Each structure stands twice: as structure tokens, then as C-alpha cells.
């Protein structure tokens, strides 16, 4: 125990010391280069360590992944577009893409609508009521998605007809003598995927609600009163006055939740493992790399994912820049 503590202290000290020495050396170099050059390249020299770390740990692996998507399962031989052809040619993968698309279309929109609803309604309660409601809605954020998925798996659980139902939904159903429904196995109209989305919404609405509540409260009251004087109804005030002024927050939440949803893995892995037509890109990537040891296919999935994320990221950066400007 003491040895480990001592090693930790020495490691931290050594790390700090090494960084100190590194920058001292870079400074020394820039000071001793003749003429004006020293001062000009000094900022670039100082950025160099951080830039090097980013290139080595982020850019290089990304480039390698793209290259690997054109190689075979152990990245030994070039096979061109075979991985992409195999993926897009398989029914299972197309179903996975469709599921991911469903998630992307439904969850961010639902998250914002639910967050807005709670924020607006909680606003009308008294201060204590508002605080309690918001705390309760926000609590699920403290649970990891794996924990949330495990809990909800018990809510959706189904036992054979005749046994005691331990799943909440089926237990309530059995009070009304409605036979047990295997919720997570039912993929008609993608019911089980919708039920899995409920899990993510349950965990994420708190985030959306908190940001939207702050945004709503920051809308200047004179704009609302002016609208009221002009004879607008409550609904018109909300839609025409409040919402346009909180547009920035809505977009931020939309983008954040979209990126979370595109990556979703733990919810699906813990509940159904991707079976019964619930598979999503994140889970399929895991299966390819960990069960099938097919690094080529896994890299191809990541490349597809990277391409899909680029528009979202571009929009986020543009949005961030416009926000900065105002």
C-alpha cells in the first residue's frame, strides 16, 4: 500500500517535472534562435506538445481506422470496398441502420418536447413545488445508463403465463387479467426499440429540462408582457415570443442529444443484446470487434458513423460561432 502511494506521488511529481523541463527547453530554443525568428515561432513551439498529443492519440488512430476499413479482419490484406459491400448487403445491418435512424429521429425531438413541457409547467408551480419537481425529473441523470437499463429491464420483464409476474408492466397487467406481454421481444412497429428509447429519455430529460428552464426564465418579461398587451393568447405567446428567444438553447440540446443517441450502446447491450430487431450502430460495432474479431468491418462501421456525424458537428461549430458573435 505504501509502495503504491509512494509510486503515485513520485509519478505525479515526475510528470509535472518533465512538463516543466520540456517547456523550459522549448523556451530556451526559441530564445536562442537568432534574429526575429525566435519570437515568431515561440507560440508554435509552446503549442507543439499539446498538438503532438492530439495528433498521436486522435488524428493518427482516426486515419488508421479509415485505412483499416479497407483491410481484412486482422488488418493484414487489402480488400478494398468488400467490408462496406458486405455490411450494406446484409439485411441485418440495414435493419441496424434503420433502427439507429429511428433513434435519431425520435429521441432528440422527444427529449426537447418533454423538457420544454416540464420546464414550462414547473415554472407555473410555487417555488417549492418547482424545486421538488425539477429534482425528481433530474435524479435519473445520476444513474449510469447501464444501471438505468438494468432497472428498466425488470420493469419490462415477462414470465411464462401462470408464473408470478415480476415485471412491473406485466404485474399491473395481471391485475386486470391481461396475459403477459413479452415487451422486449415484440418488434412489431418496433415496439421494443421505442421502449428502449424510453429508457434513454428517462435518463436524459433532466438535462434538457434544466437548460430549457434556465433559458425560459432568461426571456425578458417585457417581451411577454408586450405580447399580452397586444392580445396574444398563452399558446401564441409561447410559440411566437418565448420559443424563438430560446432557440439557441434548443439547438444546443438537440445537437448534444443527437450525438449521444448516435453513439448509443449500453442501453441496447444490457437489455436485448441487439436481438429481436433492436440492434443499433454502437452495439453492432462492439459485436464486430469483440465477438467476430473483424477489425475491418468494425472500422467500416466507424467510418460510416464518422461520415454521419460530420454534418452534425459542422452545424454545431457554426451554431457556436453565431452564438459567440451575438
Amino acid at each position: 500500500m505504501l509502495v503504491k502511494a509512494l509510486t503515485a506521488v513520485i509519478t505525479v511529481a515526475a510528470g509535472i517535472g518533465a512538463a516543466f523541463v520540456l517547456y523550459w527547453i522549448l523556451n530556451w530554443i526559441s530564445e536562442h534562435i537568432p534574429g526575429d525568428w525566435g519570437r515568431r515561432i515561440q507560440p508554435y513551439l509552446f503549442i507543439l506538445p499539446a498538438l503532438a498529443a492530439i495528433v498521436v492519440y486522435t488524428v493518427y488512430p482516426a486515419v488508421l481506422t479509415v485505412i483499416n476499413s479497407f483491410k481484412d479482419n486482422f488488418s493484414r490484406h487489402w480488400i478494398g470496398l468488400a467490408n462496406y459491400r458486405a455490411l450494406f448487403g446484409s439485411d441485418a445491418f440495414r435493419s441496424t441502420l434503420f433502427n439507429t435512424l429511428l433513434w435519431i429521429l425520435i429521441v432528440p425531438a422527444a427529449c426537447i418536447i418533454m423538457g420544454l413541457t416540464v420546464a414550462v409547467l414547473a415554472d407555473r408551480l410555487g417555488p417549492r413545488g418547482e424545486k421538488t419537481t425539477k429534482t425528481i425529473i433530474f435524479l435519473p441523470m445520476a444513474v449510469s445508463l447501464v444501471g438505468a437499463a438494468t432497472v428498466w429491464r425488470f420493469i419490462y420483464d415477462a414470465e411464462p403465463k401462470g408464473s408470478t409476474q415480476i415485471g412491473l408492466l406485466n404485474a399491473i397487467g395481471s391485475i386486470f387479467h391481461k396475459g403477459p406481454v413479452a415487451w422486449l421481444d415484440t418488434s412489431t412497429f418496433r415496439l421494443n426499440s421505442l421502449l428502449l428509447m424510453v429508457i434513454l429519455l428517462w435518463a436524459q430529460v433532466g438535462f434538457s429540462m434544466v437548460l430549457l428552464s434556465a433559458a425560459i426564465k432568461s426571456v425578458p418579461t417585457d417581451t411577454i408582457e408586450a405580447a399580452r398587451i397586444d392580445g396574444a393568447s398563452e399558446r401564441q405567446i409561447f410559440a411566437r415570443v418565448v420559443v424563438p428567444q430560446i432557440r439557441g438553447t434548443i439547438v444546443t440540446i438537440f445537437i448534444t442529444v443527437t450525438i449521444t443517441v448516435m453513439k448509443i450502446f449500453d442501453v441496447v447491450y444490457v437489455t436485448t443484446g441487439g436481438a429481436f430487431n433492436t440492434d443499433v450502430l454502437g452495439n453492432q460495432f462492439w459485436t464486430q470487434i469483440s465477438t467476430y474479431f473483424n477489425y475491418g468491418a468494425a472500422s467500416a462501421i466507424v467510418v460510416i458513423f464518422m461520415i454521419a456525424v460530420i454534418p452534425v458537428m459542422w452545424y454545431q461549430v457554426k451554431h457556436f460561432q453565431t452564438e459567440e458573435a451575438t
Partner: protein
Amino acid sequence: MRSQARRVTLLGAALLVGAGLTVTACSSGGGGGGSGSTTVTIWSSVDPPVKAGLEKQLVAELGAQKSNIKINWQTVTNINQLIITKIQAGNTPDIAYIPQPGVVAQMVNLGAAKPLNSVVDMSSLQQNMVPGMLQAGTINGKLYGLLGSANVKGLVWYNKPAWTAAGWQTPTSIPALTTLMSQMKAKGSATAPWCLGVNSTGSPGWPATDWFETLMMRDYGPTVYNDWIAHKVKFVSPQVENVASQFSQIAFTPGNVYGGRTAIPTNGFDTAGNGLFTTPTPKCWMYMQGSFITGFFPASVQKSLDTSVGVFYFPPATEGGQKPVEGGGDMITMLNDTPNVETVVKLLAQPQIGNDAAPTSSFISPFKNFNASLYPNNTTRSVASIMYSADDFLFDASDAMPAQVGAGSFWSQMVAWIGNQVSINQALANIDQSWPATSS
């Protein structure tokens, strides 16, 4: 003044860096084992009690030989995945216990596993192991994976007191089993002939593949079974279609399975068997599962295993027909070919290595000449003797097929078919389509 302060700071920084470098050098020097090292590292994912028993015996035998070899045996989670990653990182153990022949084939493909033919006594192994055990780990004619522990599948479990009270006899052929099922249904609908569940967290469907494999090997024998694994017999074939029709007769006929066909995809493999023991009336008479299912029975049953539970071999296709047994187990693979590692492998390949693990854990030895009195109860002894007296030991097909099929489409298509989402012909075609074009 300033330059003084600067010199002190510089000195301090240099000392820190020096300390850091020494620490790194020391830790890497101590940790790594070189090629002439006397420490042999073993990795396995087996149950901790099994590992503890095997390790204890191994260390004792090395001590008796006055050997200076040290054993470093680690339990790792998900060794299938870990070993492939570590092989590519160049950071492997000396010996690894691998539970899937498909993964052993991957290791050979990557050039990481070394042949065992000259290390172990092949003729003695052929004599003392059930036929088929060595073939499971033989790739391109050389032995790369030697079965170190075994588990048995294709076993039918029953509630011993209820069974004897009802007067049922162990069926000795599949037609006799069918007759027994009708007799059970005639007795009353409160207790169905079978409990069946194919659900499993994260990997639903594998119990259905066990049913297919059990029926396949009894109906058609080891050669067709191995051809099926090698994709020479496709899933869309008269043999597999016949097996599918047999399974649907057993599982889908109303009244045969507790809960009916709709409950099968939802019933967990771990809890479905508890239907054997419900009081006052059991929900079912028979449950087919592997030898490890005893660990999932209710606690009261586990405490009195020999008196509460009976087990018989899923009958052969015809009276007196061939009796292959389906099983699995962890295979010893050797990744470093040094004299010390070879010594350890030789010891692990002996029957006595299980002497300590057998009484204290769920360990079953793959050797026919293992001292069976060491098993902790009669149930384990019956299971082991079913395996030893079988004509052939055939490894679980879904563990031997490529992972995209064996751990992928075979499972998921079974679930889809049982859940009535896809026809059997479509399911079999889908599985064939998913077979990797070139397993490079």
C-alpha cells in the same frame, strides 16, 4: 539572486525527472518475464474454484519434482476476446485455457499457438480421452488445443422424487421419448413434458442451438456433424431441415412445453429449469441443459442434489444406436515454446491434475481413467460417466463455427424462428448467407 533561484529550480526539476525515469525503469524490469524466465504465466476464464484446485495440484507436483518453475495463474474475464487483442499487442501469456475451438483456430491463423504434438504423450491421450476430444483442438493435422476440463450437454434433467412417483422410465430411443411425451400429456395438463427456455442475457438463442446440435449428432453421426461445422453440410440441407422439423414437433406442439411456444424466447435458460421443482405440482417433467445447470437450480435442490435430481442421456435416434455426446470445455493452448512452459503443459495434460479441483468445484476431467471417486456427488459422477461411455465427444457446434454464425446468426435466427417472425427455410437461408466468405 535570480540566477541562483533558477539554478535551484532547474536542479529540482532534473531530480524529479530522474526519479520518474528510475521508477519506470525499475517497474518495467521487474514485471516482464524474459525468454529464460522461470515464471510460467497461465490465463483462464474458468470458475475460480476450478482454477484454484488445478493450480494447487500443479504447484504441488512441481514442488515434488523439485522444480524451480514459478506459476503465475491469472483469472481473466472474457479470455476469447482478450487473447486475440493481446496476441496483436505482442503481450501474451505462456499458456491460455480457451473455451472455443473457433478462437483456437484464430490463434493458429495469427501464428500465436504452438503445436503440442511433440510436447504431450499423444498415444496415451488417444487412449485415455473420449474419441473426438483431441480432434476438437486439431487444426491442419496438428494438435493446438488440448481439452483441460470438460462439460457435458445433451443431458435431460428430471425431478427424481416426482419422476419415480409417476413411474416414468428413462427412454432409450427417440421414438420411446415421443411415446413418453404422449403418456405425460395424457396424465394431465398441469405438468407439461418439457420446460424450455432460450433466453440468455446478451446472447439469446444459444440453448436452441444446443437442441439442434443434440438432435443432429444423434440422427446423422460425427462425420455429418463435423461437416456441418466446416460448412460442407449447409444449413439449407435435408439434414438440418429434418432436425428443425424434429425440434418443432417437440417444442411447438401445443401442450409439450410449459408456457407454450410463445414463452420459449422469453424464458431464461437459467430459470426455466426451476419449473421441474415447483410445489405442489411441477410445471414440467423434463429439462434439457448442460451439466452446469445444477448451479442454477433452486438452493434447496442444490443442497440435496443426489436425492432431488436425476439425469439421463438424451436418447440415441434408435434403440441401440450411436451415442455421441455433445460437450464443451477449456482447451490448453501453448503460446511460448520454452522448456519450462513445455514442462508445465505436460503436467496439465495428466489426469491427476484434476485431483484437487474435482472434489472442491464443478470440474469434470476429460480423462476416462480419472479417479471418479473424487467427484463430489453421484450426479457429477453420472454426468462424467455419460461422457466417458459415449462413442464420440463432439464439441458444441456453435462454439466451433465462425463467430459470425456460431455466436451471431445461428442464435438470432433461432430466436426469430421460434418467435414466429421468420419461416424455418428463411432462417436457415439467412444463417448460410451470413457465413463469412473467407475466414482469413
